[in-house]
């Protein structure tokens, strides 16, 4: 076994257990229903997506609001993953099995991500409708799904970090929502204007390059740019590594 594979020993077992766990309780189904209602509403609402009014054969009306739905729903998916293990003491069982901390952490992340992917792909009727009504840009739709999954990954890594930090699921949820909102707000025009006015153009460009929304929009336009892809990968990995370090400290408390 290679050293890298050894480091993630036990990942598969944890992934399978956690993924099944979403469907063993009502939580998973409730999440999917709320997600689909919210995304569908924002897509067709006159105040938000205006899909019906715009009469365009694309899914911008759907995808541009998904990060804002994720801000609340992804922390809900993540909150129990470690907080519950620590509260109930099962973390001691888990980490004395032939499972490494890294393996279990990544396993939980991938389980949550796979669950989010299932939810996201359940928006397929929207794709079906667009294809029926017009001639959509399939590249942009594909890129939008990639961008959505990458945004879900970053926000899930943030949620998992706070779940490792707090034994209390509610606290983990609130902190994760706050951090995610902050992460998204960096990207709204008002914030960027404010930063530009007070700190100058250079700082504004730096802050803008850290904006999840900017990179997300760049990807949904159908451009799978390397820098935007790297942004998501690096932030996801960064939050995951921080979460593993935190868990190493908090597991025994």
């Amino acid at each position, binding site marked *: 076994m290679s050293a890298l594979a*050894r480091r993630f*020993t*036990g990942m*598969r*077992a*944890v992934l*399978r*257990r956690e993924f099944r*766990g979403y469907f*063993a*309780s009502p939580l998973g189904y409730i999440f999917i229903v709320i997600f689909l209602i919210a995304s569908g509403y924002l897509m067709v609402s006159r105040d938000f997506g205006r899909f019906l009014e715009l009469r365009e054969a694309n899914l911008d009306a759907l995808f541009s609001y998904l990060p804002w739905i994720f801000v609340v729903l992804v922390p809900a998916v993540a909150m129990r993953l470690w907080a519950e293990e620590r509260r*109930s*003491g*099962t973390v*001691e*069982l888990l*980490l*004395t*099995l*032939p*499972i*490494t901390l890294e393996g279990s952490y990544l396993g939980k992340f991938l389980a949550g991500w796979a669950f989010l992917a299932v939810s996201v792909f359940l928006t397929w009727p929207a794709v079906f409708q667009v294809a029926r009504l017009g001639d959509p840009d399939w590249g942009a739709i594909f890129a939008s799904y990639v961008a959505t999954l990458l945004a879900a990954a970053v926000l899930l890594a943030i949620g998992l970090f706070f779940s490792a930090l707090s034994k209390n699921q509610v606290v983990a949820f609130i902190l994760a929502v706050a951090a995610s909102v902050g992460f998204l707000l960096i990207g709204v025009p008002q914030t960027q204007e404010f930063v530009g006015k007070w700190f100058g153009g250079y700082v504004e460009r730096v802050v803008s390059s850290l904006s999840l929304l900017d990179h997300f929009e760049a990807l949904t336009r159908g451009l799978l740019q390397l820098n935007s892809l790297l942004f998501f990968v690096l932030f996801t990995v960064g939050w995951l590594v921080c979460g593993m370090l935190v868990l190493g400290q908090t*597991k*025994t408390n």
Partner: protein
Amino acid sequence: MTETDHPDSVPPAAEAEAGTAPPGADAPGEVLVSVADLTKHYGAIRAVDGISFEVRRGDVLGFLGPNGAGKTTAMKMITGFLEPDRGSITVAGIDVAADRLAVSRRIGYLPEDAPAYGEMTVEAFLGFIGEARELEAAEEAIERVLETAHLRSVRGQTIETLSKGYKRRVGLAQALIHDPDVLILDEPTDGLDPNQKAVVQDLISSLSSDRCIVLSTHILDEAERVCNRAVILSEGRILVDSTPSALVTQAPGHNAVRFRVTEGDPADVAETLAAADWCAGARVLPGGEVEAEPRDGENRLNDVLAAVGEHRIADVRVREGRLDELFRDVTRGVAA
């Protein structure tokens, strides 16, 4: 890969008879757990303070001690969940600090309060443990431990709906699924009713023959029932390392003679007995009985009968030492 190269292991019964001999002296089972100078601090508090011991195949070692004595901390370090500040631990010849994964494959661990995923069924939970342990014949292993831990009837129930006794047995089943050489059980019977306790204790006794078991408890009867070695811990240090039967003889009041005086004054009898040089003390108990305690812990029934003289006595009993009295005696000295 484990048992074949140790033809010299001796049944544990031989060792239980060892009495006052040093534990394990006449039972050359291989050393499965070896702990040297183990130390762990929590901030300024020294939870475990330089303990050393060895446990051999066939041994059932009981960790006794008041709450906060360091029993749980020591077990968490043996299983690799906690890292020691100082000292070394080897399990089945493998250094825990160097290769926790290899050690975890040789250990079955029941953490305190037997944590388990409550939303899973017993069967699914054991399936997960089997998968995590990469068992080749997982189905057979699950059937085997369901049988061993008497869980057949609840196999399809979610764990959160089970009673404490069943939950504890699920924890034991999980620890046994890979048939480990070393079992670490943290308070396996704590919080169970007397019937459930007996079931779990019988289960532990039945497991002891070809492996080594380390268990913690603060129930001293339990140590007498299931352990062939007892270590008393207090404030992170080992105060006593002996066998339960040897501990009984060291307990205060071991072989004390108790009787009722039917003719004559009990106070006179007590006074006469107290004057004898073998006697550590004699007194009249609140119920009117007289109790004489020997100085050397030997059975002094004949001396008592001789000293009583023409007084008539009845209901004569020689008392066994009680572990809880020894325990209080030993641990009080440290706390003071």
